């Protein structure tokens, strides 16, 4: 490697790191203060780029000067900042009191809405922005040309870092941000106007995301995939740096982009997985990121966000569930093939969601990567059937939960050592690493094309028979999992969730219990994955993708994580809403997003949680509870 190449590649890495930091800094500040995992941050980045390709060319019509270019960039960022304020005031402000996960759900609704709004306003074709006047050329460095604009970008990152540190340490707003990042409750107790603080923070966060996007227009065309392509990387940077730490994000961005600039020389395919590998390693070694601190509130007893008072079924509820189950079992007799297909999918997803709620609602272990175990189960089943073994479906369906459980045992060993958002991020990292393995191992897994020909054994080949196969396996698994909530094991998990310290003090081995729960949930998800692969006839990496993990989260949140049976209703509602809007319009993502936000606002405890609340309020005067099916109709 000669010196000139080394220098040029370093400069490339620095320019990319600088761009990434600008975006990630906004995310980390917003998380630090509001504790919201803001999925919409990527959307703000995309909107910044679209604003800039609209505003900047218009300004350059007057005069092709660098000044006007940067005026345009700043104006775009300001517009996006205002959009951030609107999101805070209209949406987030109403849901600070609901479980933190619900806020994540709401921001994901915003992502879906923004995707379709952008498509509607700017159209599907990529829009290439103008280059920065006066910085079109390359500058000769050691005999190689390097873009002038990227030299400029290298300085933007440190400048933003400096400005942020200045704000943090010299202004009252900045001091409050730091205070809130350290201990939000205390800041509230001291009488600080939290509403103003949060609005200001969202403005700053969205502004930085918009700035990051607007600065990219000389390098990247504004396109509709920008939001999702940046958001995971931005998350990884904030986590590696330590959530809430701006200097940490700066260092993390530098490490990632420098590793990438040189890593691709040795492993040309590394970009797919590099950031997640790094995140997993950092979190295993340093559980709070490079510069993050353990949460002050983590030792405090807080109101948990999961299942609170566990009740058995009343006689009426038992009746309702028995009737519902019977109705479900009649679907193949009364409905057409399509209904049967949808019924199979709902049962499969219900099992996966139910197992996820064993972790989240019951154990307080928030997993952003449950699709990993679903996918591992699906691949184990699919590859057994289609691979050299040509195993029958029966064997594959035994292997699926084993594989899912095994993967959960392996990853869970590391995951249960962490807590809170870092734990969630480690689950995400492992899921992405799994995704990358199945994506990249083309010889065995077929890469992104996947493997086709995963069909049930002959006796179960018709949809109707397979429906009952799924019904038996999924429903018994759900009943067994539900039973687990009521066993001492279930109570122990809840004790550890409510206060890990106190549980530890009375002699409970918290980590081992959590690990066991993880393995059980992984095995159930694996079984669901196996069942799903036989219903759609193929396996492919979208089954392990982040989108799939998010879908599972949506399902349990829609139903309500405070209830045992909520995830089942949530799955039915979520799947029906999607199935209802998809054939109706190209803009189905918009309506899905609106539905999600509506559910968050109207049923902040999920559909079933809301039903329970309603019943408590009506007391004994309400003779029958609304059936979940009726609720599903209303919300759809």
């Amino acid at each position, binding site marked *: 490697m000669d010196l000139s*190449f080394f220098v040029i590649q370093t400069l490339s890495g620095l320019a990319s790191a600088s761009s990434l930091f600008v975006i990630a800094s906004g995310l980390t500040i917003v998380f630090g203060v509001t504790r919201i995992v803001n999925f919409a941050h990527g959307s703000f980045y995309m909107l910044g780029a679209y604003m800039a390709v609209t505003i900047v060319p218009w300004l350059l019509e007057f005069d092709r000067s660098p000044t006007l270019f940067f005026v345009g960039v700043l104006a775009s960022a300001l517009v996006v900042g205002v959009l951030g304020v609107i999101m805070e005031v209209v949406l987030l402000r109403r849901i600070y009191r609901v479980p933190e996960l619900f806020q994540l759900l709401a921001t994901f609704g915003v992502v879906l809405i923004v995707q379709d709004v952008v498509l509607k306003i700017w159209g599907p074709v990529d829009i290439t922005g103008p280059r920065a006047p006066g910085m079109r050329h390359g500058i000769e460095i050691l005999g190689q040309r390097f873009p002038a604009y990227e030299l400029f970008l290298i300085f933007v990152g440190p400048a933003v870092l400096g400005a942020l540190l200045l704000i943090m340490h010299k202004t009252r707003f900045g001091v409050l941000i730091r205070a809130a990042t350290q201990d939000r409750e205390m800041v509230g107790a001291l009488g600080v106007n939290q509403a103003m603080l949060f609005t200001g923070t969202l403005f700053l966060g969205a502004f930085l995301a918009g700035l990051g996007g607007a600065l990219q227009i000389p390098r990247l065309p504004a396109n509709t995939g920008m939001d999702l392509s940046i958001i995971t990387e931005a998350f990884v940077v904030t986590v590696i740096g330590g959530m809430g730490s701006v200097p940490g994000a700066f260092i993390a961005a530098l490490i990632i982009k420098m590793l990438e600039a040189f890593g691709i020389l040795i492993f040309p395919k590394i*970009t797919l997985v590099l950031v997640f590998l790094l995140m997993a390693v950092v979190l295993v070694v340093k559980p709070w990121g490079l510069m993050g601190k353990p949460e002050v509130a983590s030792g405090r007893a807080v109101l948990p966000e999961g299942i609170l008072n566990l009740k058995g079924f009343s006689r009426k509820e038992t009746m309702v569930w028995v009737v519902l189950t019977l109705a479900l079992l009649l679907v193949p007799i009364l409905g057409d093939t399509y209904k049967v297909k949808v019924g199979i999918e709902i049962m499969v997803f219900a099992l996966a969601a139910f197992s996820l709620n064993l972790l989240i609602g019951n154990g307080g272990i928030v997993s952003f990567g449950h699709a990993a175990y679903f996918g591992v189960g699906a691949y184990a089943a699919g590859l057994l059937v289609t691979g050299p073994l040509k195993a029958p479906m029966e064997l594959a369906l035994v292997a699926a939960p084993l594989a899912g459980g095994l993967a959960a045992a392996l990853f869970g060993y590391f995951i249960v050592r962490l807590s809170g958002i870092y734990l969630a991020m480690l689950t995400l990292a492992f899921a992405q690493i799994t995704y990358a393995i199945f994506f990249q191992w083309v010889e065995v897994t077929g890469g992104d094309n996947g493997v086709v020909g995963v069909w049930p054994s002959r006796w179960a080949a018709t949809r109707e028979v397979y429906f009952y196969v799924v019904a038996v396996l999924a429903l018994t698994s759900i009943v067994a999992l539900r039973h687990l909530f009521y066993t001492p094991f279930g109570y122990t998990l809840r004790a550890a969730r409510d206060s890990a310290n106190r549980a530890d003090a009375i002699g409970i081995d918290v980590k081992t219990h959590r690990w066991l729960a993880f393995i059980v949930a992984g095995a159930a998800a694996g079984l669901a994955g196996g069942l799903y692969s036989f219903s759609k006839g193929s396996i492919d990496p979208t089954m392990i993708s982040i989108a799939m993990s998010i879908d599972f989260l949506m399902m349990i949140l829609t139903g309500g994580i405070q209830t045992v049976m909520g995830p089942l209703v949530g799955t039915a509602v979520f799947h029906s809403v999607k199935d209802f809007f998809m054939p109706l319009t190209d803009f189905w993502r918009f309506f899905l997003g609106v539905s999600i936000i509506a559910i968050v606002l109207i049923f902040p405890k999920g559909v079933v949680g809301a039903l329970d609340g309603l019943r408590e309020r009506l007391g004994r005067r309400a003779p029958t509870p609304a059936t979940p099916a009726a609720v599903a109709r209303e919300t759809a």
Partner: protein
Amino acid sequence: MTKLDLSRRTVVGGLAATGVAMTAGTGAAQGAPVKVGELNSYSRMAAFAVPYRNGMQLAVEQVNAAGGLAGLGGRPLEIIYRDDGATPGDAVRVAEELVTRENVTFIAGAFLSNVGLALADFANQKKVLYLATEPLTDALTMGSGNPFTFRVRPGTYMQTKMLVDAAKSKGVKRWALVAPNYEYGQSAVAAFKRLMGAAVPGFEVVAEQFPALGRVDAGATVGALAQSRPDGIFNVLFGADLTAFVREGNTRGLFERRTVVSLLTGEPEYLLPLGDETPEGWIVTGYPPEQVDTHGHQAFVTAYKAKFNDTPRLGSVLGYVVPFMIRDMFNKSRSTETAAMMEAFKGLTTQTVCGPVTMRAIDQQSTLGAWVGETTLKGKLPTMKNFRYVDGADVMFPEAEVRAARRI
């Protein structure tokens, strides 16, 4: 179910009206429409799929105005459009809905290769015909091919072969390759190595880069390619990745004095966003709508512009060609039975605005070709020069290979 009524909104405009108002001698289609289910990523891949649907709608109108499907007693053709969600899981469910609820005669469409493969396998399992219009993966007609699946667009291997045929005479030996890290990119690179390696003695790959799709780090990638000092570059990047790559490469002089061969870059979908930075003289596959004047092509361009107020994209041509192939198939099958339709497609030749297109029986791949030429700027408009239409028949897999891959 109200949703069924609503979902018909995409039914070709005026179709029902023409059917009702039909009287002898008007020449319009009559009778109950023959339904075909079309799934595509209209939401996620709108840049390609929406012009594609436009082309289809235009062609269906013309087919029905000219008397519909003569082989089926002049019944009109109706295409029911559905979003496939851009994932195989959603696509298979939607296909099931089209087959059971809408009673379509067969299914068509898909953009992404993994969606196409899942639909092909669904078709094989459910004994439904599937006309794969857009997916490029070679597996669809080779290793994973099945009797129920027919493909229209020239696949990855065919398009790569067109480029190699056009570029091999330059005799460039030292190549750097860059492709998105997924099946399409990997297969294109493999085909290029194989074909160029056979055509040019001393062929050598000095660098390979596989950035993740949609997330190219252009600076680092261009640096890594330039470091290997190649004489030729084979590019498979497209979309936003391509634009970022071209800008970075232009500024750093990566393309100067080098032969660049680039897959799909001449398609308006990907070429137009390059704007005034369009590099001069890249050898590409693509489609220059304004300049093609064979087989009544300009009449299509004019009609398309009049209806949609936009120039056609590659997707538009593809979408426009397909309904005519479907019409000819029905005219030959005279039936909507799957077996009869499959038999009718085999060896079927259709006269299209790209020239005659034949569905080769052995691998059920059509001979639709593509335009190969060089990129250039006409004023401020990126387009192609020195182009010619390469008939797909000239670049298909050899029959022996097909037999080996499909085990027939």
